[in-house]
């Protein structure tokens, strides 16, 4: 490996030996093609004309009036596929194409990454397999159907709690047996090196755009940037542009599970708030686990945040204190979903609703001149059934 893939002590590539050559090949291709004008030109063209970049930075006036400070939404919900995931799947998909790979595999939780991979698989004419936990298949069924319509095979994973962690386990196992012709299109800024670096690279357009748009619209930098954190890809995508801006406060919002469980072990996914450092899925990072190191079960209303690990750079940013990580509960996310829908006519994904929930919890605590950018990582169409279950419309 050319790079050590470390963020302080975090990261690395703790994988079975058989995967090392594949990760080396991937790192090599990533470094080569992202320095290649042809590759970058093709990607920029796809991001613009296929996916719809740049996405708007929208001043949410009515929501701001309610909060008492200014809220800007980075509209990744408007990106093709309905979430930020497409930035990464186009980038990695094109990388697969340049590497001459003909088969894609991916894990998915909420189904947004699976869908974005299935779309790219269709676009590039690649055979695509999506690994998805049985629990998630049930609660995100709309996305399962869409993936199949795009021609992908959706493989149900029964192990564990049938969520994102289990899908990653099985995707890694499948990759181990098929490394020679298969590209593993990892969906978050987690996993073994070089994935955290690759995913950050392809998601950093969110932050680069948002920073410039904010300066254009307001004449200055925001006071705060907030994003939800599952594995951490949408968050690192927007945070990365602001890390050096010392006056910009940065907040990552994790899934706190149901408020009644009060972050009890097994009932939430607030990895950075309640975890300990360990090794899972190829990376040294904060993890939810017991004393022996067995990985804990997690719970969240949002499939995309329901993961006991987190990308290693977030562990680093937590320890250095540059980013603050806080949990938001299921109920608060549901409130935020309803609020944004009612006040702005925008249906946020339940994942993104966690970030909105945190920002709304600051109501009355910030001066009216304060401006906050929230990364609206995805749209909520996929979650309408879940919201209906918890909050039936009268």
């Amino acid at each position, binding site marked *: *490996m050319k790079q050590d893939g470390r963020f302080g002590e975090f990261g*690395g*590539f*703790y*994988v*079975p*030996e*058989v995967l*090392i*050559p594949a990760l080396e090949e991937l790192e090599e291709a990533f470094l080569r093609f992202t320095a290649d004008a042809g590759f970058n030109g093709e990607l920029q063209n796809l991001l613009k004309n296929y996916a719809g970049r740049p996405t708007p930075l929208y001043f949410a006036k009515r929501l701001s009036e309610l909060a008492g400070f200014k809220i800007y939404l980075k509209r990744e919900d408007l990106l093709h596929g309905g979430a930020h995931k497409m930035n990464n799947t186009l980038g990695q998909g094109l990388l697969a194409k340049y590497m001459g790979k003909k088969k894609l595999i991916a894990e998915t939780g909420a189904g947004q990454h699976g869908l974005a991979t299935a779309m790219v698989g269709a676009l590039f004419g690649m055979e695509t397999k999506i690994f998805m936990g049985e629990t998630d298949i049930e609660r995100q069924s709309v996305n399962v159907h869409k993936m199949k319509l795009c021609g992908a095979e959706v493989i149900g994973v029964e*192990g*564990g709690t049938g969520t994102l*962690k289990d899908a990653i*386990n099985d995707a*890694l*196992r499948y990759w*181990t*047996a*098929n*490394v*020679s012709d298969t590209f593993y299109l990892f969906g978050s800024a987690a996993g073994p090196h070089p994935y955290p670096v690759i995913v950050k690279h392809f998601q950093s357009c969110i932050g680069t755009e948002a920073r410039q748009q904010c300066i254009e619209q307001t004449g200055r930098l925001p006071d705060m940037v907030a994003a939800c954190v599952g594995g951490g890809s949408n968050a690192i995508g927007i945070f990365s542009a602001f890390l050096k801006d010392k006056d910009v406060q940065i907040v990552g919002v994790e899934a706190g599970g149901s408020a009644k469980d009060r972050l009890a072990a097994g009932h939430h996914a607030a990895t950075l708030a309640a975890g*300990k450092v*360990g*090794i*899972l*899925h*190829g990376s040294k990072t904060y*993890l939810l*686990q017991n*004393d*022996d*190191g*067995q*990985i804990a079960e997690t719970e969240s209303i949002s499939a995309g945040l329901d993961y006991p690990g987190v990308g290693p750079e977030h562990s680093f940013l937590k320890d250095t204190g540059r980013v603050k990580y806080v949990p938001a509960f299921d109920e608060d996310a549901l409130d935020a979903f309803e609020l944004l829908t009612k006040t702005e006519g925008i249906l946020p994904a339940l994942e993104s609703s966690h970030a909105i929930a945190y920002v709304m919890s600051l109501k009355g605590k910030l001066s009216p001149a304060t401006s906050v950018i929230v990364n609206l990582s995805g749209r909520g169409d996929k979650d309408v059934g879940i919201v209906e279950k918890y909050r039936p419309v009268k």
Partner: protein
Amino acid sequence: MKTYKELFAQLKRPALIPFFVIGDPDYETSLEIVKRAIDAGADILELGIPFSDPIADGPTIQKADVRALAGGMTVSKALDFIRQIKQYKDIPIGLLLYYNLVYQKGIKEFFKDFYRAGVNSILIADLSIDDADEIAPAAREAGLDTVFMVTPNADEQRIKQIASQTSGFIYAVSLLGVTGVREGLSDTIEGFIKKLKKLTATPVCVGFGISKPEHAAAVARAGADGVIIGSKIVRIIEDNLNNKKKMLSELAAFITECKKAIEKAR
């Protein structure tokens, strides 16, 4: 405590190395199973501590991990287990597990405790030689051999690097993939073993997918110093969960058969 060196020098044939998940399906049964395997002719034991997320393992060993964890297996009970096995017989034991379990206990303490309990070597499924520095000094200090895996997709340079970090024996993975019972042996296995034997003087033990006495014999004929049988043995446990007597007798019969096949092979 018997070392691999002593054992390999004594044996005039490849070693038979069954693999078990400690505590599968429960502590007491697991103890009986392993003792029975020793009686049936195991030369070395490969023992795994169950992990919640075994990414290098196929469904059979995944289920064994689930059973063992549901049965209450912990790292400290695994220590007791190994002590009890060593009291029964001084047989070399290789420990195979995932890194997080070592990391949480503390690498130094983990190695010291397990060496004292009677373990000869440590193999961490999700730690490659690229990070050997994190464990090798502590393993050496504790007295443990460090076993690493080598896979058929490694080039010559990588094989040499792996061999240089490995002591005790090198674990040759017979195929590209996770553990699991398989019908046939990979057709590249013979060439792979021969290549390894040329590149290293460290004993080469071969595992993954070896499911029949014929497979064991073929691997032995190709020049392996040891034959590791995992999923097939765990499958015998799984298939007989309701009948312990049958489980133990089938297991003993299978191990005896494999042993005979190996003995005849050379």
